[in-house]
């Protein structure tokens, strides 16, 4: 076993002070880079991974985002050593670990399904990995306790998994994964079984803890909001490969393909005409995301326009007619039909809703934010 005793570089008492941190990852001395290189994996007729490349900087949290079945879990399992790739390499901290079995990889995992050992208490679950590393009993207990404090569940140390709620179990699972001071932390949809409120709360806490321990982390999810909220960079996957990898705001505001624009956030598909580096949509010339029109050339296209880039003005001479509105809280979505039967969804302040009853004539104005286009 290749485990050196590294002192915990934080103690339980520093936990409360974590709130005031900025969101720049602070790689600690034990943060490592991860490199997935040309991974391929085929299951029968399904190419689950199709030449996947991914580089993670030390201490970085990357969220792998994509529709169900696009290969996110497979990628994570190959990194964990729980699945073999048909070809490609896995490098951690510069070392090629492709052939290393899962139990020698030193990776902490949190699963989607509840995975605590049912016959052990929360504390014993967290101690499990330390015991395998021959940490002495007293020290083990102390470290496991500190971990449970870190994930905010120290008072439940003696409970068995079946005495804990789903959210609490995932906290313990996180503590168990972190207790072994893994080189890489792997989270496979850890929040998808929880209800909405707990999900948001635990999501933020996972990020807080990850920043605190500085472990390089891969967070797999199909929930775009979750991915955008926690990640340093978001990798959008499609059919076994990365479609785009970038900071959350970039992926959202400058999606490099129509697929990304569609999957991350909501987009209108509006007919337009490309000329040069602009696209004319509903009478407005919008800038193109750089490179977005390559391979399409000029001519008729569909432009993907975000609802929040659409403004509505009540105008008796307007060509649009309000179809319906759905209230979302501070903002609302209003769908508008154009004379050529195109549908445009706009996001407006909810305060404007009373003026936008169905049937109201409106004028549509598009904000000049860069858009992607796809062949019509």
């Amino acid at each position, binding site marked *: 076993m290749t485990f050196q005793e590294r002192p915990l570089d934080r103690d339980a008492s520093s936990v409360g002070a974590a709130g005031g941190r900025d969101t720049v990852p602070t790689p600690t001395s034990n943060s490592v880079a991860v490199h997935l290189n040309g991974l391929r994996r085929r299951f029968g007729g399904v190419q689950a991974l199709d030449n996947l490349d991914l580089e993670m900087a030390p201490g970085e949290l990357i969220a792998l985002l994509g529709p169900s079945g696009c290969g996110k879990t497979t990628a994570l399992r190959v990194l*964990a*050593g729980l699945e073999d790739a048909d070809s490609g390499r896995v490098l951690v901290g510069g070392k090629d670990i492709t052939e290393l079995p899962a139990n020698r990889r030193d990776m*902490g995992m949190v*699963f989607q399904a509840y*995975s605590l050992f049912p*016959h052990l208490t929360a504390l014993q679950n967290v101690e499990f*990995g330390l015991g395998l590393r021959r940490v002495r009993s007293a020290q083990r207990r102390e470290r496991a306790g500190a971990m449970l404090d870190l994930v905010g569940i120290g008072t439940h140390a003696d409970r068995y998994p079946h*005495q804990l709620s789903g959210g609490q179990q995932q906290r313990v699972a996180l503590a168990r994964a972190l207790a072994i001071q893994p080189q890489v932390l792997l989270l496979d949809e850890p929040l998808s079984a929880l209800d909405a409120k707990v999900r948001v709360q635990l999501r933020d806490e996972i990020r807080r803890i990850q920043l605190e321990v500085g472990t390089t982390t891969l967070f797999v999810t199909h929930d775009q909001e979750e991915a955008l909220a926690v990640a340093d960079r978001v990798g959008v996957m499609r059919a076994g490969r990365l479609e785009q990898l970038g900071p959350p705001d970039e992926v959202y505001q400058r999606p490099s393909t129509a697929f990304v624009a569609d999957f991350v956030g909501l987009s209108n598909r509006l007919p337009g005409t490309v000329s040069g580096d602009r696209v004319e949509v509903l009478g407005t010339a919008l800038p193109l995301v750089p490179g977005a029109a390559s391979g399409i050339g000029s001519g008729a296209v569909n432009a993907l326009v975000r609802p929040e880039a659409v403004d509505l003005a009540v105008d008796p001479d307007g060509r649009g007619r309000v179809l319906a509105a759905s209230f979302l809280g501070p903002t609302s979505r209003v769908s508008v039909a154009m004379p050529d039967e195109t549908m445009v969804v706009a996001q407006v302040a909810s305060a404007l809703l009373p003026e936008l009853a169905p049937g109201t004539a409106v004028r549509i104005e598009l904000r000049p934010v860069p858009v992607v286009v796809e062949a019509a």
Partner: protein
Amino acid sequence: MAGVTARRARKQRAFRWIVVIVLGLFFLVPLFAMLMFTIREPDGHYTFETWRQFFDWPQLASTYPDLWTGMRSSGELVLLTVALMLVLLVPTVVWVRLRLPWLRRVIEFICLLPLTIPAIVLVVGLAPVYAWVTYFLGGSPMTLTFAYTVLVLPYAYRAIDAGLSGIDVKTLSEAARSLGSSWGTVMWRVVLPNIRSAVLSASFLTVALVLGEFTIASLLNRTNLQVAVELLGKSSATMSVAVSLAALVLAFILLFALSFAGRRRGQNRRSIRETS
């Protein structure tokens, strides 16, 4: 309305008790008859002489050497068969669940086969195999353990498979692997502790079956408890019945303990609660 429900509940309760009593009589009357046979003298007196002899093991061994050998053989066979069954079955079933899920039906089918084949037919098949076993390992009764392991497969497989269905073996073992466990540690420290009552059930069933087995041992010319009892019946009927009774009671106690263990587990499950 409530009256109707209450009356029906009362009826059902009465019916349940009748079933219990009828079944109880069905099992207990023969046992009672056996007991009477062992303690009643021909002249109508009662004596516990047979039982005194039965529990005085050194004397039992010298008075009925064949019986003693049979008892010892069966005792050792029980231990061997339980061990062999567990060593064969637990890792296999776990591995099939983890890595070869499509093999599950096949394994289940193979394990259930012995149930459908009468012991006498089984022996016809086993005889040539045991010619080789005898050739390599000699004629010791211990070699019966192979046949018995096959014989207990249907019951043991069911028990262990049911136990494994109660936990998410795949996720648990992957969690343990990622924490640094070897496959041995996964088995020993994660899987086994969580299927303890299933392993216990499988073992109890094995004990009961091995203690009661006669046909195969007799036809393969090996002496176990039941064969010895049968032989003894020709010379000392009382002792032979006493031994049979003891074996039966032991098996009953084991099966009873088994259902009790199952019940306890069920109660644990039911106490699950959400404590947010």
